[in-house]
């Protein structure tokens, strides 16, 4: 995968309140969110966010409620104006755009999926999906043809003329997804898109999204407060707390090396055997005695393979080449390690 930077967020601050600019000095000198609220009646939304989002990756943003996830994602298409900082997309400064340029940017470059769907109740499914196209002035058959493709792709064929209030939550979010895809924007902003859905439907939707992503290769910013979802979808994960970035890394990095107790709390309940991959714990001495295991294999599966083979070690491969080895003891001690 390429790792060109698609979106760059630099020194981004957001303070909510009557006079946010005056609060900047305090925020920069380390006044806490609580103090700012109690003594100055301003809310610290984001504090010094620096983040580079790679092209064609899924960047997950995680954090507890109120940690600033929605605020952050809305800076990318400038639904919220920052108090200070820069947002650069494809080398273009989003904050320097005029109203019309911004409108054009939102129409063609970045589309959005919302937690509570935010569909138009007075439009049919087909018209909802075509909404972005209608806004761009694409009408009639052309719009219909282009949206029909996405309606079918998300599995809503046959429901075109229904109103959205007649659909289940999962189906409504499919409409939301199709609406966002129909504009062919390269960036997809998803603010807790699946949080309102039942666990089973949520898994379905995650599968649909992963399927679409293999095919479409978009740059997706995906917010969630569900760690399993983050680990499953994210090429990279950033964790926020009280408006600050606590850790950025791949799922493996975060699970193996949580930087503080906040993150340890997050990951303490996950099933480590199904998340940690052998490449994260292998040692680089090659012994050539056991079965070959791909580096991306999770520990649970690796353990199975190794014990079936009757040897105590497995050879870890990357792109078909042996790069290291892992033994049963290491796996077991990793699985049972208390964090």
């Amino acid at each position: 995968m390429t790792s060109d930077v698609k979106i760059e967020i630099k020194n981004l601050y957001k303070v909510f309140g009557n006079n946010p600019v005056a609060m900047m000095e305090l925020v920069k000198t380390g006044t806490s969110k609580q103090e700012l609220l109690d003594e100055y009646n301003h809310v610290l939304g984001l504090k010094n966010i620096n983040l580079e989002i790679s092209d064609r990756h899924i960047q997950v943003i995680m954090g507890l409620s109120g940690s600033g996830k929605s605020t952050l994602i809305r800076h990318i298409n400038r639904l919220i104006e920052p108090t200070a900082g820069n947002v650069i997309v494809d080398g273009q400064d989003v904050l320097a755009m005029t109203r019309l340029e911004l409108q054009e940017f939102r129409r063609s470059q970045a589309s959005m999926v919302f937690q509570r769907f935010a569909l138009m109740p007075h439009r049919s499914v087909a018209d909802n999906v075509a909404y972005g196209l209608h806004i761009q002035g694409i009408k009639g058959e052309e719009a219909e043809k282009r949206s029909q493709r996405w309606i079918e792709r998300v599995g809503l064929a046959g429901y075109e003329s229904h109103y959205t209030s007649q659909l289940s939550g999962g189906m409504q979010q499919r409409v939301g997804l199709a609406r966002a895809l129909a504009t062919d924007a390269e960036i997809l902003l998803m603010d807790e898109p699946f949080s309102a859905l039942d666990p089973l439907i949520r898994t379905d939707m995650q599968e649909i999204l992963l399927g679409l992503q293999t095919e479409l290769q978009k740059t997706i910013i995906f917010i969630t407060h569900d760690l399993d979802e983050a680990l499953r979808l994210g090429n990279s994960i950033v964790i926020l707390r009280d408006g600050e970035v606590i850790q950025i890394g791949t799922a493996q990095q975060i699970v193996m090396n949580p930087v503080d107790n906040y993150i340890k709390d997050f990951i303490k309940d996950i099933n480590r055997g199904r998340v940690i991959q052998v490449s994260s714990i292998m040692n680089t001495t090659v012994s050539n005695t056991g079965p070959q295991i791909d580096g991306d294999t999770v520990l649970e599966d690796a353990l199975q393979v190794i014990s079936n083979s009757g040897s105590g070690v497995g050879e870890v491969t990357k792109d078909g080449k042996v790069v290291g080895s892992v033994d049963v003891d290491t796996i077991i001690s990793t699985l049972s390690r208390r964090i």
Partner: protein
Amino acid sequence: MATLAIISVATLICIAVGIPIGISMARSNRVQSVITPILDVMQTIPSFVYLIPCVMLLGIGKVPGLLAVCIYALPPLVRLTNLGIRLVDREVLEAADAFGANYRQKLLGVELPLALPNIFAGINQTIMMSLAMVVIASMIGVKGLGVPVLRAISNQYLALGLMNGLAIVALAIIFDRISQKFGQNIQKHRTSDHDF
């Protein structure tokens, strides 16, 4: 017929004036705080009070009558338009923004359609209130069903008053049903949940 005409004209004027005022009220809290007391005054002040200057300035006839009817019937439409737009789901509006809708596309494509039930309730109210004003308007020379009612009051003709009063009620019911039905028809999505 004369009654029908004056009510139709009054309603059209109210729509043309009231909906834009309602929209501007929904846009800014300042405008809302200025206009709300004006609406309160318009609704509560006895109509005779403004009938006098109307007649003094414009003489007796249809125009001052129309003005009086409009002043009385306008406030509910303005209020309900304002309310309807303010009640539009913020998230849906945000979605429109996120897809790059401009001001006009948001107003015509999202806010007005979603505020429609309230706007229709407002139009309905306006029609009812202008019907109620017909009798008073007849005092300053507006023809129609109000005239015989007025004559009946001053001469204590019970039967005449009752007949014409009932005619006004009948007209009110017809108008009410028509406007409600029309309102329902252009927003099928709200009623179609059941025949699914």
